[in-house]
């Protein structure tokens, strides 16, 4: 599903974010990307949805070499990838429903489908009851659920979550991880970048550890650190 071959990323500022990264992630896998801040986790994710381009090497998503895509093709790549952020990035002047429906509206989904699919997504993340609330009225965990609903409303085969529990308390973090796990089991390839040790250790999934832009460990049923 996802393949990185000899990927390096050096920013124009000279910062070396990734170096010779090789990574293969199969369909419907659940992978933790762990490592300290600045290890390259966010950069790696941004390469997948072409928010950044690699300096060298190739990034292949769903058999498509993302590096070669033209600016006109990028939107279609992104419809296959849902992204969840640490800071949610919800639009403050829109309700929960509108935030989720927005993702369908701007990709030109037919109007007949928008309502149904938005409701389904909100149902899945247990936020149907808060559909008409505004983001400022929600708790952190609820905001993250809305962010997840927006990421999956298009039914993308791949979901990327960058520090999804970074701003949440341990209990809420667990609930969010359970939700992501549920989505993974509905045939979605899932990448979670995190430095939440207890979650990684308890979930017992594949762990890819980054440090200084290099993959230093890649193990099935892994833990956060040795």
């Amino acid at each position: 599903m996802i393949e990185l071959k000899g990927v390096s990323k050096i920013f124009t500022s000279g910062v070396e974010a990734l170096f010779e990264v090789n990574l293969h992630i199969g369909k419907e896998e659940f992978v933790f990307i762990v490592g300290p801040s600045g290890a390259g986790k966010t950069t790696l994710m941004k390469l997948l949805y072409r928010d950044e381009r690699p300096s060298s090497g190739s990034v292949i998503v769903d058999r498509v070499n993302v590096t070669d895509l033209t600016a006109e093709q990028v939107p279609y790549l992104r419809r296959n990838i849902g992204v969840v952020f640490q800071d949610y990035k919800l639009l403050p002047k829109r309700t929960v429903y509108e935030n989720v429906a927005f993702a369908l509206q701007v990709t030109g989904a037919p109007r007949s489908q928008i309502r149904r699919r938005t409701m389904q997504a909100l149902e899945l993340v247990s936020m149907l009851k808060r559909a008409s609330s505004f983001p400022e009225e929600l708790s952190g965990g609820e905001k993250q659920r809305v962010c997840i609903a927006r990421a999956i409303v298009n039914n993308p085969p791949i979901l990327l979550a960058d520090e999804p529990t970074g701003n949440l308390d341990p209990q809420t973090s667990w609930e969010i991880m359970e939700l992501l796990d549920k989505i993974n089991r509905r045939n979605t390839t899932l990448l979670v970048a995190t430095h939440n040790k207890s979650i990684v250790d308890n979930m017992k999934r594949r762990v890819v550890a980054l440090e200084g832009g290099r993959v230093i460990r890649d193990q099935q049923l892994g833990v956060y650190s040795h």
Partner: protein
Amino acid sequence: MINYLSHLEFFIVEAFRGMRRSGIMSMVAIGIVTVSLTVFGIFLLFVANMGNMVSDVASRLDIVAYVEGELTPDQADNLKSQMLKINGVEKVEYVNRDEAWKSFQEDFASKLDLSEVMRENPLPNSFALQVRTPDILPQVANEVAKFTEVNEVRYSGKLIGQIQSLVSAVRIGGVVLVFLLFLATLLIVVNTIRLTVLARETDIYIMQLVGATKSFIRWPFVIEGIMIGVIGGGLGILLLKTSYDAIIFRVSSALPFLPVMTNGGVLTMIYIMVGLAGTLLGMLGGYLSISRILKEKE
């Protein structure tokens, strides 16, 4: 296109949302468009009135060809029909010297008694020619002078030439001025809308992230620009029409001989042009501002 049309409602809702959210900036943009278009309209009205005056003056100017000696009615008719054949001549009138003398005497009867000064009619027979456009006056005058019967040809060529060069100077200057005005307004509108675009950076980022195409992101901003342009243009037309009507009313009662333009067709055309310029300005403004932001993010 069909695909986009089906999302028109979404675009319009988004455009209104955007305008509401950046209320003050939108009003500023509308104000700027209004002022610029009013200036544009004033200029168009000015040029149209100049043109009107020139053609008014020109229509009163004609060529007078004086004839030596007497002409029989047949000769006069013959000459008249030959003159009508000259290219550009619209009307030829034979002025009999006796009639001319009579009307001259009538005109000045109260002011001086000519019969005391001269008993003989000093006026020659003449032809008055009207031409289609003032610029062919010299040509026609030359042709008329070739007739052997014609003694002298007179026309106010110099005056016409001066008026015409003035009008063309105004027109050329006007085109340049309108162009510069349009450019300046466009620049201001682009930057004003750009500020409202910057305020919605997260919206645009989310749109890009979930896979909205560029044109889809652009539409609401283009529509927002059009709305700003249409409202600004409408206000400009209102301002122009009210003030022009008021001015016309005063001028036509104070200086009734001044040929101010009250022609409904031309005025309507000018107002339509102002409205269209506003729409175009807003549309371009919206398009360019969002395109610049999208380019930066690429």
